[in-house]
């Protein structure tokens, strides 16, 4: 019954509006539904760009999955912090820039800025996937500084900043930190089976 989960994600984001940083609590089994909801139901259908910062799944995998789901990826840009760490062949794709690893937080900030500049005045949602994987590679103090700066900066530019998090797999201190840096913590529940 997760068919409309993606549209519910979009409705929830639309209700919140821009310039609000959202911590989106998700379940691992609904991951692709949530991603689809953010990229297709929210960004694409509202004519927005989507900057997708991934530190958990390689952009090529996400691209393939979205193509299989026939999701429109025209306004989608990836900041891929995973592929380099796997030391595999990197296939240069127009909509993707690579950061060597998820601990190069300043470079991630600069790549977000880069895509925002190219987007001009177009409304943009910026997704950080995910707080869990960022927390594996970074000390909570620097991660807190990173999210504070980048989320505030995105809010000032009337973007839609969204941090994906799987709460039951997060350390308490990271969860508390996200509670402080995000304006809203939004749980996305799967539909209950009858």
């Amino acid at each position: 019954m997760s068919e409309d989960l993606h549209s519910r994600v979009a409705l929830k984001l639309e209700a919140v509006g821009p310039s609000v940083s959202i911590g989106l609590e998700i379940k691992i089994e609904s991951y692709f539904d949530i991603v689809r909801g953010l990229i297709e139901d929210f960004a694409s259908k509202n004519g927005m760009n989507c900057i997708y910062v991934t530190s958990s799944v390689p952009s090529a995998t996400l691209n393939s999955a979205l193509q299989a789901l026939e999701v429109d990826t025209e306004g989608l840009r990836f900041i891929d912090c995973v592929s380099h760490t796997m030391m595999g062949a990197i296939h240069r794709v127009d909509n993707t820039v690579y950061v060597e690893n998820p601990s190069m937080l300043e470079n991630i900030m600069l790549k977000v800025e880069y895509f925002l500049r190219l987007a001009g005045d177009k409304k943009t949602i910026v997704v950080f996937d995910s707080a869990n994987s960022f927390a594996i590679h970074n000390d909570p103090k620097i991660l807190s500084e990173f999210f504070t700066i980048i989320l505030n900066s995105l809010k000032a530019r009337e973007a839609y900043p969204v941090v994906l998090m799987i709460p039951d797999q997060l350390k308490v201190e990271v969860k508390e930190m996200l509670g402080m840096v995000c304006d809203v913590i939004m749980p996305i529940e799967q539909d209950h089976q009858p």
Partner: protein
Amino acid sequence: MAKASERERCITGIEGLDNILGGGIPTHNIVLVAGAAGTGKTSLAFEFVVRGAVSGENGVLITTVESKSKLLANIPSLVFYDEKTVGKRITIMTLKDLLEEAGISDGVAGESVMDMLISMVEKMVVTAKAKRLVIDSIDTILPDQKEERLDTYFLTKLSQMLHEKGSTAILVCKAETAEGGIGSVVDGIIQMGNLERKGDLLRTMQVPKMKGATHSRAKYVIDLTSAGVLVTTLLKGGI
């Protein structure tokens, strides 16, 4: 209470740098952009000229390290560059051509040669009606690091000339050059560098000196992109 008068600024167009400087380089300043190889000195200097051209200010670029064709080949990679409107506002010359035009033999140095060089640069600035000048790099022009007196002589004369002509200059150099005596002769220093953190190498930028400006002295992280030089805060990690 009288309000302190602010110096007029040359807005570099490099947003992060203008923010660090509180609005741009004070006009007519002569600024060193110093750093090791690969730190982004040439990209910063180049963008300074191109951004000026985009905003309607003519610029002169004297290159001593790259050929004119190689330099021109790099311009279209900047997304804000438009050949038709911007290209005509930028005059590029190699040092070799400049020396040949001045009739200066390679390896000859002295105050008279410095005077001739200044005179040639002045001619270029006047002819091009240039508001911005870049020399990349000054190390090749300065005759000998041991002859600090000549370095100072050249930069003092260049500074005077640019002030009279109303131009603002960026001079690219090695990090050691800025640490020497000429660091006190110029109006500003922008240090480009590398910062290693757990094996990752970040490009950095810091402004330790800029006459006529109240500026940040913090270290920033930069990226060289087709949208120009981007600047962000250096994270401290709670230290």
